[in-house]
């Protein structure tokens, strides 16, 4: 099984070589074989006696990340869709993409995407699932941005990536959380220990994170906005991503975790309300679109909302309907996308305002479209699979029960919203079909003269339409082999249902009729009421929110950043110092760090006081003098003062060194600053000066208090007695400091010299490179 998942990835490696001969041999032909092979491999699992299979391959056992593939009814359904539609799409793309395109790139992305989708639906390990999940986001990013010379493609690609990766990260948060709580990385095992998660205090957070992941992927309102822009992708991609795969991954995720979470009321409330709102919003917005693919995009959003809502209902009937509709939607939506592609390909435009009356030019395409569209609308005909699941949807929406608060309100509202959403579904379906294929034809305005598509292009949609009809006529053919298994996997126990066309003249059927009646009226009068779109959504759309956030994130960042990254050293230093002083003092007092121990101090003598005073005055002097020579010399006074202190405090070597270093430094100072402008008045405002003083005094205080406290907390003997004892014995020298320097801490000294050497080289190159430049 691992081979089946990895096959697309492995094959993707060879695509670049294969695409070198694309002039003679369309790369797509070879690629078509891959999903077909996987399809055939998995098809043998189909059947009434199917039982889940788990295969496990070690990958990173120490992190509990293993390739564990769990093939149950739900995964099988998705695998069949991914590979089945994948085959058709790959075949379709052979005719859709011309050989002059960058076929290699396209098929590499395509295969990576397909492999990742397979990984998502088969993985039982949460982290492996997450890995594949992110890869679907990234490969769809590449697919959407395939024609990246177009601005709209780049925009759409970025948008889909940001939103879906955002969701992915949120999902990761939820997964890690569940891992920590349950101690397992296997979804199946988590399901058995779901109590721990449901009763955890952070359950609401976990649920939100998880659903955020699913909703963004499945384009639920208000995260749906990436989907319409993703239509910039080549049409085979849209057909693949948005009918059967990418967007269904979110559905899959919710379905997968449904046995674990459905016990929670919040799960029902959140999932079904998001679903139902998405259903209504999507279908409502679809009518406004002018791009054929735009209509289909919003239609997809709306249909996904419907499926999501059904999973949220959580009843046996609803789950069954949801799973059934996943299949049905894939068939009719896949064919419709391909039809939109054909129309685009043959006429050069997808703008429904320019199209019309194409029935006469593309009769075959139009016929196919008719089946797809009426199935999508849920027209009550026995050979349209869309009707079955739509009817089940109505039925299940009526069967909801709840006991308290919001849930009760929802159970009452849902049937009405369901009808409302379906009316618009009917409207846009009709709009799509009649706007394109019927009505007045204005052939001359089209960029290309339309004619029927090549047979090869028609093969894939035809197969899908045959499925639409086939499932409609013989639902039991798909029911037992896999719909039931899939529904059972989601529901958690046996969820077998019979599928009938005629249930009698009951409430769901009346709902269907209502939809058709109102739908027909609205569809006929579209131009008269489209004015409502000026008010809802009006100017306030989620797209604007997204654009605002993305644009502003850059603008805002650069504003924030510029406010402190000014390049001013003084500002940087002030911020750093304020932090150090503030935090250190706070901690200092919080931990009772202050200590004062006056015993055992050296006596105060006059000469030391004099030296110290001189140094202090000199130190202040450097601030107040405006003469550079004076400033440098005063600095020298401080240095020599320090040398004096070294003498007083019994450090002859230090005193010597300090004297020499100070002398050289002062000389250097004079040398360098002789060439630079004289000191000016400090030229700071009063406020500036005050802040600087505050910072400086604060830091000085910090050093003094910490120094006093440290000195008063001498809790241990210093290690120096060893040096005194062993300086001569082991080190062979009388001068202990020297012995320490050259022997005990010789490494310090060696590298101290290295520092000097480096400084010398740096200075040399500073001076030398200058000369070279000036010579030029």
């Amino acid at each position, binding site marked *: 099984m691992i081979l089946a998942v990895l096959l697309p990835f492995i094959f993707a490696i060879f695509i670049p070589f294969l695409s070198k001969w694309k002039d003679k041999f369309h790369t797509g032909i070879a690629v078509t074989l891959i999903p077909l092979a996987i399809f055939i491999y998995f098809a043998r699992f189909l059947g009434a006696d199917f039982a889940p299979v788990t295969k496990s391959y070690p990958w990173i056992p120490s992190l509990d990340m293993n390739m564990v593939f769990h093939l149950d009814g739900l995964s099988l359904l998705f695998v069949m869709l991914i590979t089945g539609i994948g085959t058709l799409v790959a075949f379709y793309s052979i005719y859709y993409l011309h050989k002059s395109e960058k076929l290699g790139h396209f098929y590499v992305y395509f295969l990576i995407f397909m492999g990742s989708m397979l990984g998502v639906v088969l993985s039982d390990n949460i982290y492996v699932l997450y890995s594949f999940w992110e890869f679907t986001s990234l490969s769809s990013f590449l697919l959407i941005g395939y024609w990246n010379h177009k601005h709209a493609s780049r925009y759409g690609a970025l948008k889909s990536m940001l939103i879906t990766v955002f969701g992915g990260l949120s999902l990761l948060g939820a997964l890690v959380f569940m891992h920590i709580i349950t101690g397992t990385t296997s979804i199946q095992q988590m399901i058995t220990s779901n109590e721990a998660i449901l009763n955890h205090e952070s359950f609401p957070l976990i649920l939100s994170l998880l659903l955020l992941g699913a909703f963004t992927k499945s384009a639920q309102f208000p995260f749906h906005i990436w989907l319409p822009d993703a239509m910039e992708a080549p049409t085979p991609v849209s057909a693949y991503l948005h009918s059967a795969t990418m967007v269904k991954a979110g559905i899959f995720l919710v379905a997968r975790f449904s046995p674990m979470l459905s016990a929670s009321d919040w799960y029902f409330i959140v999932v079904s309300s998001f679903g139902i709102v998405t259903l209504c919003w999507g279908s409502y917005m679809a009518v406004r679109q002018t791009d054929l693919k735009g209509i289909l995009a919003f239609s997809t959003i709306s249909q996904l909302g419907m499926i999501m809502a059904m999973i949220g209902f959580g009843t046996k009937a609803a789950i069954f309907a949801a799973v059934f509709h996943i299949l049905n939607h894939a068939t009719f939506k896949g064919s419709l996308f391909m039809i939109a592609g054909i129309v685009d390909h043959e006429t050069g435009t997808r703008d429904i305002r320019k199209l019309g009356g194409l029935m006469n030019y593309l009769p075959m395409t139009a016929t196919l479209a008719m089946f797809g569209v009426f199935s999508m609308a849920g027209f009550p005909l026995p050979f349209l699979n869309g009707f079955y699941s739509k009817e089940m949807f109505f039925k299940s929406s009526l069967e909801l029960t709840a006991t308290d608060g919001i849930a009760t309100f929802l159970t009452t509202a849902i049937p009405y919203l369901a009808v409302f959403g379906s009316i618009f579904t009917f409207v846009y379906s009709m709009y799509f079909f009649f706007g394109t294929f019927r009505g007045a034809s204005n052939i001359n305005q089209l960029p290309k003269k339309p004619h029927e598509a090549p047979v090869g292009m028609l093969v894939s949609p035809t197969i899908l339409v045959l499925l639409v009809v086939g499932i409609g006529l013989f639902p039991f053919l798909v029911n037992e082999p896999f719909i039931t298994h899939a529904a059972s996997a989601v529901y958690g126990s046996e969820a077998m249902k019979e599928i009938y066309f005629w249930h009698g003249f009951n409430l769901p059927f009346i709902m269907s009729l209502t939809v058709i009646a109102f739908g027909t009226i609205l569809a006929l009068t579209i131009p008269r009421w489209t004015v409502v779109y000026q008010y809802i959504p009006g100017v306030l759309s989620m797209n604007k929110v997204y654009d605002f956030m993305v644009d502003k994130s850059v603008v805002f960042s650069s504003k924030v950043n510029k406010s402190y990254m000014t390049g001013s050293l003084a500002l940087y230093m002030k911020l750093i110092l304020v932090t150090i002083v503030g935090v250190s003092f706070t901690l200092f007092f919080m931990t009772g760090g202050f200590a004062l121990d006056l015993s055992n101090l050296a006596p105060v003598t006059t000469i*030391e006081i004099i030296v*110290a005073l001189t140094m202090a005055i000199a130190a*202040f002097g450097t601030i107040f003098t405006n003469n550079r020579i004076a400033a440098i010399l005063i600095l020298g006074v401080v240095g020599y003062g*320090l040398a004096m202190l070294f003498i007083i405090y019994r450090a*002859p070597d230090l005193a010597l060194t300090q004297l020499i270093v100070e002398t050289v430094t002062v000389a250097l100072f004079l040398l360098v600053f002789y060439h630079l402008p004289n000191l000016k008045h400090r030229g700071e405002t009063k406020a500036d000066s005050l802040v*600087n003083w505050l910072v400086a005094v604060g830091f000085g205080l910090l050093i003094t208090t910490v120094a006093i406290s440290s000195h008063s907390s001498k809790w241990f003997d210093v290690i120096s007695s060893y040096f005194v004892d062993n300086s001569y014995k082991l080190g062979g020298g009388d*001068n202990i*400091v020297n012995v320490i*320097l050259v022997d005990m801490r010789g490494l310090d000294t060696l590298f101290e010299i290295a520092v000097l050497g480096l400084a010398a080289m740096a*200075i040399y190159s500073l001076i030398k490179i200058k000369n070279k430049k000036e010579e030029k």
Partner: protein
Amino acid sequence: MEIIMSVLAGILFMTGVYNLLQKQLLRIVIGTALISHGAHLTILTMGKLKDGAPPILTEGVENYTDPLPQALILTSIVISFGVTSLLLVLAYRASKINHTDNMEQLRGNDYE
């Protein structure tokens, strides 16, 4: 005496920091020099001041001042010297090339 020395070190740090916050390069470099003096004084103070003879072994003397801080200071002095020299040359070059010795004019957020 240690208290006084701690205060002196604090003053050195304070004046050093204040200078560091100025605009003119010379003041800034002077600031760094003051700060290193302060640091060295702190190390010295953190050993025990005048607690014994200079750390040179002499017949009959048992008690020496702590030699380790002295060794550390010596290393540190030399290193500071290296850095300061580099800094001086760099300050010179930077101000020549950029035609200013005012740090506030050396912000350069033009990202060239």
